[in-house]
């Protein structure tokens, strides 16, 4: 309890840093989800009719998730330098699989009869995709986005090790200051803020879900 009070006091006395860390961390999540989301959905759509291409895309995306985060964060440093760029690339690669897998699952799960009916009514392939396939697969895709967002929040804390900022800064500076005053508070603050951010993003995604999913399939 005492520690909790000190933690809150610590956070309040560093509102600027807290805000900056949160914004930076959230910025990773947003940019990564948007870019990786688009990339994964397009990949899923393009490969949806070809079993080999589909499975190959999945297999490659899952290998990225196998590569340790510290390694993936630093492996691009010689090419792009430190800071945002290598962190973004690593988080982007990590986020692909959940969204790609769910895009494919979502598209595969559509009742062929529905597609047949759509084609039969004279919709062009593009219209079928945009008006029927994607809306029907959307809830599943969004679930993948949610998994990716949790993943990104957690792993983005590593960005601090390659000067990428974010909430990991609190953990790193706390670790460097142990056992001085406010060092533990700093570590806990960084860790807990990750959870808070994850919770907030989860709520936003739920709202997005409620707003974008057709009532008929909710």
């Amino acid at each position: 309890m005492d520690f909790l009070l000190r933690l809150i006091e610590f956070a309040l006395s560093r509102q600027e840093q807290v805000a900056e860390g949160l914004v930076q961390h959230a910025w990773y999540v947003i940019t990564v989800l948007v870019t990786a989301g688009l990339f994964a959905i397009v990949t899923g759509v393009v490969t949806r009719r070809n079993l080999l291409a589909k499975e190959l895309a999945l297999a490659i995306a899952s290998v990225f998730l196998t590569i340790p985060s510290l390694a993936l964060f630093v492996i691009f440093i010689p090419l792009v330098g430190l800071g945002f760029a290598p962190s973004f690339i690593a988080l982007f690669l990590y986020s692909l699989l959940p969204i790609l897998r769910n895009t494919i699952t979502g598209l595969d799960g559509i009742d062929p009869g529905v597609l047949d009916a759509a084609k039969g009514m004279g919709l062009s392939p593009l219209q079928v995709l945009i008006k029927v396939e994607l809306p029907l697969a959307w809830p599943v895709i969004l679930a993948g986005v949610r998994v990716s967002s949790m993943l990104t929040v957690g792993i983005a804390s590593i960005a601090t090790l390659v000067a990428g900022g974010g909430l990991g800064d609190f953990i790193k500076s706390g670790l460097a200051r142990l056992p001085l005053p406010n060092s533990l508070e700093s570590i806990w603050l960084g860790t807990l803020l990750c959870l808070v951010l994850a919770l907030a993003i989860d709520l936003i995604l739920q709202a997005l879900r409620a707003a974008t999913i057709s009532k008929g399939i909710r």
Partner: protein
Amino acid sequence: MTTANINTKTRSPLSERLDLIISPIFAVALAILGIAVWVYSDLDKITIAILSPEKIQRQLGETLILGLTSSLLVILISVPVGILVTRKGYPRLKSLLVNTLGLGQALPAYGLIVIFFSFMGSGIVTVILALAAFSLLPVLRNTIVGLEQVDKSVIDAARGMGLTARQILLKIELPLAVEVILAGIRTAVVINVGFSALAFLVGGGGLGETINSGLKLDRGPAILIGAVMVAILALVFDFLSALAQKYLKPKGL
């Protein structure tokens, strides 16, 4: 690396085959990259000091010990807990676990290791426990999901034929859940090998030392070779787990 997403569906033969092919291809490509860097870049004295063979050897050993011990610990904890939770009497605990485990992914392993340090002090045990705490989730979740998805009529038939609860668990439920449980263990092993790169922060050793030295001393080749080694190690374990998944799952599924 935090593959906490769960693959409960039985995989197609094609994806199973690709699963066994792609990891080795990546590992070989990374190995070639690492060797090329080693051979073709000018390694100054500092880089050579960072990459000294006895250091790398020790760090490799530490990474292996960290990854494997924590994985073993996770299996020893999560599988029994998962089994216990899916037995009758804990439905609420089960849904609570399955629901919160998703959010648990957002917990930074980095913070977790440091927090464990603040309670337990430095050393390899701290790291093993922190890694285990972090990778507990996928195994526990997959154990629960794996056991839950066993066809209820199969269990009913088994009970009706007079198998005891223990026989049903050992002979029916676990064999039928083994693929999903193994998928969770595979995730945990990969997480543990991967995050053991952060062990150096609290005196747990591992290849993270090489990467961090490279970062601090601004030696690109050292960073890259360290990262490549960690990645290859993770890929090798991923591959071994995939093999285990393939050969340990019962035929007929």
